[in-house]
């Protein structure tokens, strides 16, 4: 006690205490009177606490903290490869086109577009779009208007061999493949018409071409980014696009984005001033931080489902009470593929397909947070209706019959599994289901990249795989996965059928999307007669977020539209 008094007296002699409450400054000066000092502190304490609480509260609602499970990649649209980075990159970058909440094409940087023959596409870019302010621009305002030249330089870069996403464009845009192979200095099919008009010419007509451009992978960035002066820092300390938020800082632990005050879409001007992405790798700890209130949002990983969900898949009361939930789904597909050059017995493949109880896998593994699927094209993509009946997918009687018709003699079939997207767990459940059927599956666990390598070499009879499609219509999915020309990548199954090749090629002549969807369904039914893969489910994702905020919307490309989030207060 006497020590405390000594400290107080000493502090008292230092004479001043400053309390900062927003703009109001309160100065207190006392001399030699420790009693007065103690009384003053006692009186001011609630005020100071209130000030600090208000300040903290303001800060809490003017920023939104997102807990993420891994360090994001370099934010260079050319090298980004993990769709999980999109939660961040969508905030900074935008493409010519995007998707609306129904999954249909929506104008973004391109205000409108036109085509007469589905081969030449003309995009009219918005005139009021500025890049986020950055030192990469050599002018006093640190920004400039986006023009068609930026679209040209960006699309040229996407055609280059350095671009991870070049596969989206090389077989579509005229001259893109030559540029990719280093046989040309420019891309023949890309042209600037005027300052705000950009034209793309394709190799062949493609009514579904726009559905290649809706992903975060094809975003527009300024040509200054590729200059020698900024090449080193691009994507690390610097990332400049036209999106609602701009990068303030990035480390492997924390990425801070702040509102882009010059965002072109005034109707979507962000209400939250700052987005903070915090890397918390351990799922339990991320959940603990959410409970503590130090983060505002997390996507719930499957390993936490037993903690958060009831057996029927609904969110437990304790979490419902404290958090809002948002379930969203992307265009994804989880499957078990066959290498058709080694797994040649169609009856055996059919037996395995009919003998797979998808419902059980989804229930056991994902607490029902997935839709079972019979084919690869995600239901609902541009209004697509698959040709499969969910309840007819699992048929043990038919499975036994097909197995009897097969030449299977009980040998072990190797299936590769990996660490991504529950592959190992799916493999284990599948293995036990096949055992009940009478088929021996041997699981080999490898890392994801090794599995890809063996799939491409063709020495994996069966493999677990997961696709997160960046296309937003069925045609490019079928074109990439099932045409003979796409063997061995990305047609990993080595599927080849002349009739299907022709039918997919014919899709280029169908402009009406309803009709195209019908044709795609017929093609998918035809493909699945031969069972090149067992398609299992389309995963749904669960997001928990703080009740202090509202308005979160996530589209089918996994675009978290944080600019729509508002503080409830």
């Amino acid at each position: 006690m006497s020590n405390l008094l000594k400290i107080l007296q000493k502090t008292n002699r230092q004479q001043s205490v400053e309390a900062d409450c927003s703009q109001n400054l309160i100065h207190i000066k006392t001399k030699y009177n420790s009693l007065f000092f103690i009384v003053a502190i006692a009186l001011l304490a609630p005020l100071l606490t209130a000030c600090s609480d208000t300040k903290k509260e303001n800060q809490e609602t003017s920023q939104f903290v997102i807990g993420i499970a891994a360090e994001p990649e370099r934010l260079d649209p050319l090298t980004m490869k993990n769709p999980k980075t999109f939660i961040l990159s969508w905030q900074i970058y935008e493409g010519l086109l995007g998707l609306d909440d129904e999954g249909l094409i929506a104008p973004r940087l391109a205000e409108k577009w036109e085509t007469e023959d589905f081969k030449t596409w003309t995009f009219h870019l918005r005139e009021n779009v500025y890049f986020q302010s950055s030192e990469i621009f050599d002018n006093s305002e640190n920004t400039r208007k986006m023009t068609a030249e930026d679209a040209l330089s960006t699309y040229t870069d996407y055609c280059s061999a350095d671009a991870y996403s070049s596969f989206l464009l090389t077989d579509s845009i005229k001259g893109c493949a030559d540029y990719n192979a280093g046989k040309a200095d420019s891309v023949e099919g890309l042209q600037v018409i005027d300052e705000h008009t950009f034209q793309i010419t394709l190799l062949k007509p493609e009514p579904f071409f726009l559905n290649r451009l809706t992903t975060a992978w094809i975003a527009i960035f300024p040509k200054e980014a590729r200059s020698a002066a900024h090449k080193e820092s691009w994507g690390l300390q610097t990332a400049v696009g036209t999106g609602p938020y701009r990068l303030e800082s990035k480390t492997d632990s924390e990425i801070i984005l702040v509102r882009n005050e010059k965002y072109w879409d005034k109707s979507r001007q962000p209400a939250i001033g700052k987005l903070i992405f915090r890397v918390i790798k351990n799922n339990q700890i991320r959940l603990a931080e959410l409970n503590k209130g130090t983060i505002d949002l997390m996507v719930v990983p499957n390993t936490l489902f037993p903690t958060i969900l009831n057996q029927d898949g609904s969110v437990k009361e304790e979490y419902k009470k404290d958090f809002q939930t948002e379930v969203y789904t992307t265009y994804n597909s989880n499957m078990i593929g066959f290498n058709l050059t080694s797994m040649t017995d169609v009856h055996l493949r059919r037996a395995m397909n009919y003998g797979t109880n998808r419902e059980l896998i989804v229930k056991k593994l994902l607490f029902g947070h997935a839709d079972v699927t019979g084919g690869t094209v995600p239901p609902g993509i541009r209004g697509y209706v698959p040709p499969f009946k969910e309840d007819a997918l699992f048929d043990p009687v038919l499975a036994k019959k097909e197995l009897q018709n097969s030449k299977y003699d009980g040998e072990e079939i190797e299936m590769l599994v990996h660490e991504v997207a529950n592959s190992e767990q799916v493999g284990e459940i599948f293995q036990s289901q096949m055992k009940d059927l009478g088929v021996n599956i041997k699981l080999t666990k490898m890392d994801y990249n090794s599995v890809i390598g063996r799939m491409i070499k063709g020495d994996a009879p069966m493999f677990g795989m997961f696709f997160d499609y960046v296309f937003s219509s069925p045609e490019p999915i079928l074109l990439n996965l099932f045409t003979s020309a796409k063997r061995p990548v990305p047609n990993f199954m080595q599927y080849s059928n002349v009739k299907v090749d022709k039918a997919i090629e014919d899709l280029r002549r169908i402009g009406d999307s309803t009709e195209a969807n019908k044709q795609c369904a017929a093609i998918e039914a035809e493909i699945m007669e031969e069972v090149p893969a067992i398609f299992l489910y389309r995963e749904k994702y669960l997001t928990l977020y703080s009740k202090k905020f509202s308005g979160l919307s996530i589209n089918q490309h996994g675009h978290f539209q944080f600019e729509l989030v508002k503080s409830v207060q």
Partner: protein
Amino acid sequence: MHVLQRSIYYLSLWLGIVLFSFILFHAVPTDPARAVLGPNAGEEQVQSLRIRMGLDQPLPKQFTSYLTEVLQFNFGTSFVDNRSVQVEVGQKLKVTLALIAISLVMTLLYVGMTITFEAFNIAIIGRLLDFIWVSLPTMFSGLLIALLSAHYYPFTQFSGSLSRWTDLLFLLPPAFVLALYPMAILSRIIRDEIAKVRHSQFVLAARANGLSKRDVLYQHILRNAMIPMLAALANQIPMLFTSTFIIEIMFSIPGIGSLLISSLLQRDFPMLEGIVILNGLVVILVYMVFELLYPIIDPRIKSSNAE
């Protein structure tokens, strides 16, 4: 002469690490060009990248050019996203070294505490604590402390680059987990050494001269007991590097362990080689420092080296 001999030994050790890491990572069957471009890229594009990466060259030629670059301290750029390997490894190493340094300080404080227990004849407390620390597997203690910290510890935010003073506070819980095993081992060694030296003739002589028990402990016994402890401490350093790999993942610390694991999964050979070689260099330097410390503490070692 002795210093020269040791320097040559350590240099050859480091060159061995360079060779070993090169062979190790190039023996992995996966194609890094495919890992970079992903499953959708055409074979032609992958082959073109393979050539640009120099992976089409024979292995001895790849090693010679790599060694030339490494000797100029140029470790190249990441296969995955072109980051400079030196810069990246340097930044991450800084964080890992900070973590290890804090845990070493904790270890030494604990050893000091053990010595105090010895001085006050309450060694049983130290023995009990050692038993607890050594029985806790890192996975368990790490997860437990990480969860407790997430709930109750106020400093759970890390800037990623030690740029804020709170970053050091953030590192305290993981450093404690990292220190648990060395704490138990080193305190046990120092306790055993003290017990051994305590029965020496010179200790008896000192006591006969009228020095108190504590004076004998601090002035005579400790100095003699220090050498085995220093040797054990030097041996703990590589183990600390290995343990940080698990702890960094648990506590989301962007150190060298996190970088190693992500680079391994992405087949980022230049980054992996850079991590192993620079990590090896740090460990070698630590060993060298300890070798220099021995003769300072015990001059008999200096004279035997000279002989």
